């Protein structure tokens, strides 16, 4: 990078004038960039120019490999290549003579899985977080809200949605708001970013482009853009496309030509697009009255929606706004017609109106999130009609993708979700309703009540719904499931009475599931289309062997349980992300797809990867060890 050589040159001139040698110390980082299955870039900044060296290996004390550069610079930029996909490495940084940082477990990175890999993915997203270190504590409260929440786990990577350093994106503001606010996350998780307007206010974004390495030449997947202003990358089964709302996005512009080619090239299951200024908002910005935002909506959205982009993340407006499942709304908000421009007007929550489903013979429908609330909450009318929720609160987003399921949680400063929604996609088939993550702590076979059964679920519109399975995971159900399930429907005309349609509902227990099927005089049948169906479970009619149950909505890999006093039996835990169990020795993965594990001893499973997994044996505990 041409720009990056400048500070080094400047530093050299300054140092050359100094009478004595200055001690080297790190002023930024180390931090991780351009994550791919086989490579990663390690960056750090020093107060004086030195050469660069990264040592890396499989454990903090065995950093057998190294890479470096003999040039004397203050912006150190080393690309490690030839790495193994989906593998954790530890590292240190320094000069050819001295290690300046590293050597403990916090200095680590995990390479990306190969494109198309299906495995749980966690992403943490901050928008307009540039108030970090400004003395108001806002960005810090958002950061700590996630760190202290029950949802916490190290993300696979994290993202900033622009306006990362208020007010002018200067070098000093960048250091303060990014590097001094997030030193721990930066050293272990790759940060991706998109350009915000404030990031351009100093020398057309020079400090921003100095700080970030972004793939111009398809180094991390996707198509080569030739610029760091917009780019794409792949991670597991997700394609990410970063657009530039601050540059030229007119029809025929290089940006749109590239985006079109990039989108028609991907075969990934999910596509997430992100950029700074949102297409829909009535927060501190209004997408009806700001001409640039009106035009940008017309430029970006038809292309993205035609390619089935699933989720759009933006910032700029300092609030949290989240849309319904949309398709084809490109005009002013006064032209929004939910009947023709929304594919699902529900809230997308499994505990509310039901998840959004992209399974009806098309992959249409996009959810738009405005998350410019990670450093400021600046109000606004907060009444855009496409939005399911609009909140003037600080927070950050977590995105969990697991195969055909994508969950989004907006986490407030108190660690409590402000919003949750789910997108599902895949072929039509038996519809599985998960009862949430929970685990078995008593596998002696003693039937016990299933306390979470007082729960209702609404299926979104789904064509040809013939069979529904309600899963209780590893429980063995007893009781009378035939009376445990009530099915009610609603369509535009009002409630749907199944008995008047001659449809009978049957429910039976098969292993750990209640299977619900429908029949009429001619035999098995489907539920009528164009209605939403609610399955209400009667807790009194069912019981089974089960145990400690996590709260509804608990994210995967948040399961913590213990087996009391039985070191020889075999029990099972569900909802455990095996990739994140620190000590997997006693666990024998049974079924990686469903994240089950055999437990052959008693102890504590800690879903965070840095805690001691087998501390506190034989003691029942639900304590989560907080990461740093």
């Amino acid at each position, binding site marked *: 990078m041409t720009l990056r050589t400048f500070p080094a040159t400047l530093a050299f001139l300054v140092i050359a004038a100094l009478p004595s040698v200055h001690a080297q110390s790190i002023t930024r980082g180390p931090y991780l960039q351009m994550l791919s299955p086989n490579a990663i870039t390690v960056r750090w900044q020093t107060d004086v120019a030195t050469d660069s060296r990264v040592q890396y290996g499989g454990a903090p004390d065995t950093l057998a490999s190294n890479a470096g550069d003999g040039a004397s610079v203050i912006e150190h930029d080393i690309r490690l290549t030839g790495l193994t996909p989906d593998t954790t490495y530890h590292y240190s940084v320094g000069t050819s003579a001295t290690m300046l940082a590293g050597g403990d477990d916090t200095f680590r990175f995990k390479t990306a899985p190969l494109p198309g890999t299906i495995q749980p993915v966690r992403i943490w997203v901050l928008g307009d977080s540039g108030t970090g270190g400004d003395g108001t504590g806002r960005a810090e409260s958002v950061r700590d809200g996630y760190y202290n929440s029950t949802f916490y786990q190290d993300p696979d990577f994290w993202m900033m949605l622009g306006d990362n350093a208020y007010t002018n994106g200067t070098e000093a503001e960048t250091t303060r708001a990014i590097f001094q606010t997030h030193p721990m996350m930066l050293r272990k998780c790759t940060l991706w970013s998109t350009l915000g307007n404030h990031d351009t206010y100093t020398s057309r974004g020079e400090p921003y482009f100095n700080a970030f390495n972004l793939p*111009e030449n398809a180094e991390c997947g996707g198509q080569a*853009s030739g*610029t760091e202003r917009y780019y794409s990358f792949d991670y597991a089964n997700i394609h990410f496309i970063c657009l530039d709302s601050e540059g030229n996005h007119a029809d025929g512009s*290089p940006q749109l030509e*590239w985006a079109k080619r990039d989108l028609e090239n991907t075969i990934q299951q999910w596509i997430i697009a992100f950029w700074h200024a949102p297409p829909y908002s009535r927060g501190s910005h209004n997408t009806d009255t700001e001409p640039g935002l009106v035009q940008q909506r017309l430029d970006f959205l038809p292309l993205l929606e035609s390619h089935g982009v699933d989720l759009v993340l933006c910032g700029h407006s300092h609030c949290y706004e989240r849309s319904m499942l949309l398709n084809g709304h490109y005009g002013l908000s006064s032209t929004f017609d939910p009947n023709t421009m929304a594919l699902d007007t529900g809230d997308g929550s499994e505990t509310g109106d039901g998840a959004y489903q992209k399974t009806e013979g*098309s992959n249409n429908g996009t959810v738009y999130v405005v998350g410019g609330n990670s450093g400021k909450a600046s109000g606004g009318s907060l009444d855009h009609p496409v939005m399911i929720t609009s909140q003037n609160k600080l927070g950050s987003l977590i995105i969990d993708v697991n195969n055909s399921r994508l969950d989004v949680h907006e986490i407030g400063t108190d660690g409590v979700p402000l919003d949750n929604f789910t997108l599902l996609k895949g072929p039509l088939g038996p519809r599985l309703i998960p009862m949430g993550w929970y685990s078995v702590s008593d596998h002696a076979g003693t039937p016990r009540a299933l306390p979470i059964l007082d729960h209702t679920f609404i299926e979104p519109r789904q064509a040809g719904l013939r069979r529904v399975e309600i899963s209780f995971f590893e429980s063995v159900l007893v009781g009378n499931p035939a009376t445990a399930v009530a099915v009610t429907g609603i369509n535009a005309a009002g409630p749907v009475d199944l008995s008047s349609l001659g449809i009978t509902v049957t429910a039976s227990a098969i292993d750990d599931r209640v299977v619900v099927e429908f029949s009429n005089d001619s035999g098995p049948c489907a539920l009528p289309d164009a209605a939403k169906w609610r399955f209400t479970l009667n807790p009194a009619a069912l019981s089974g062997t089960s145990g400690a149950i996590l709260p509804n909505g608990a994210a995967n890999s948040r399961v913590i349980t213990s087996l009391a006093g039985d070191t020889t039996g075999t029990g099972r835990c569900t909802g455990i992300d095996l990739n994140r169990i620190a000590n997997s020795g006693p666990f024998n993965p049974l079924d990686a797809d469903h994240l089950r594990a055999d437990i052959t001893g008693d102890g504590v499973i800690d879903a965070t990867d840095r805690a001691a997994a087998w501390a506190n044996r034989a003691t029942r505990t639900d304590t989560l060890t907080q990461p740093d």
Partner: protein
Amino acid sequence: MIPMQTERVAHRRGTAPHQPGRAGWRLVVFLLWAAALAPVGAHEDNFVEIRQLTANIAASPDNPRLYLRRAEMQRLLRHWHAAEADYRRAAELDPKLALVDLAFATLWNDAGQPEQALVLLDGYLSRSPAGPEGYAERARSNRMLKRWAAAAADCAEVLKHTPDPDPEVFAAWAAVLIDGGERAQALEVLNRGIARLGRVASLAMKALDLEESMALHDAALQRIGAMLAAPGRKDSLLLRKAGILLAAGRGDEARACVVLARQQFNAVPEARRLTAAGRQLAAKIDRLETQTAKTTSTQNTNHPPQ
């Protein structure tokens, strides 16, 4: 409306800041017009910064950079009149502050008055010849005036003064050349961009469009062959290739290429096929299949389909 300007008016910014010349008065008219038309959204950050800058100006009333900065904030808020006043004050404090001319020139171009912009830009570039912005803005003026050669020369200067150019620099230059009827030169510029930046998708697709429009079938096939060799989906590229083969009179190869395109499309995961774009592609495959079924090769070649 902005009055039409037919004469070239000397720029008098430095000499009479409070008494704008005719260009200045017309600008004031434009600014008032623009302010009346442009709705202002809430930009809380900009307001905060303007308040801060106003406080700083009160403490250092002779610092031209503070006025310039506040003018930029006012411009972002479309507070044209306030922006203009701050630009003028900055210029008054530092007559050498050439950026003011560039800012005004941008406004003139925005207003569809490129002749006015040119006057300012010539002056700006004589004092600040090292940066690309002035050349880019002058290229815009010249393009609006259909002075293609001058616009192309400015685009060349933009590249010369941009150490780390992005695709926009090459695309804008090529667009000026295409508008001026110089398609071969435009292709050269795009190829130069690809040589400099790598196989950038936007430039490669633009070059492919040009080659097709100029019936440079072999060059287009070579380019698309290289794109097909890269990882990723092949279906849309194969379809494009079939179209080029068909235009080149190589019907048999085109037909084989459509078959390959369909195979590739069918192998794409459902999530990517069941989209509006996917359905459009499938329809295109159908159309080209029908077209190629009716044709046979008019050229006898040994090119195998890829």
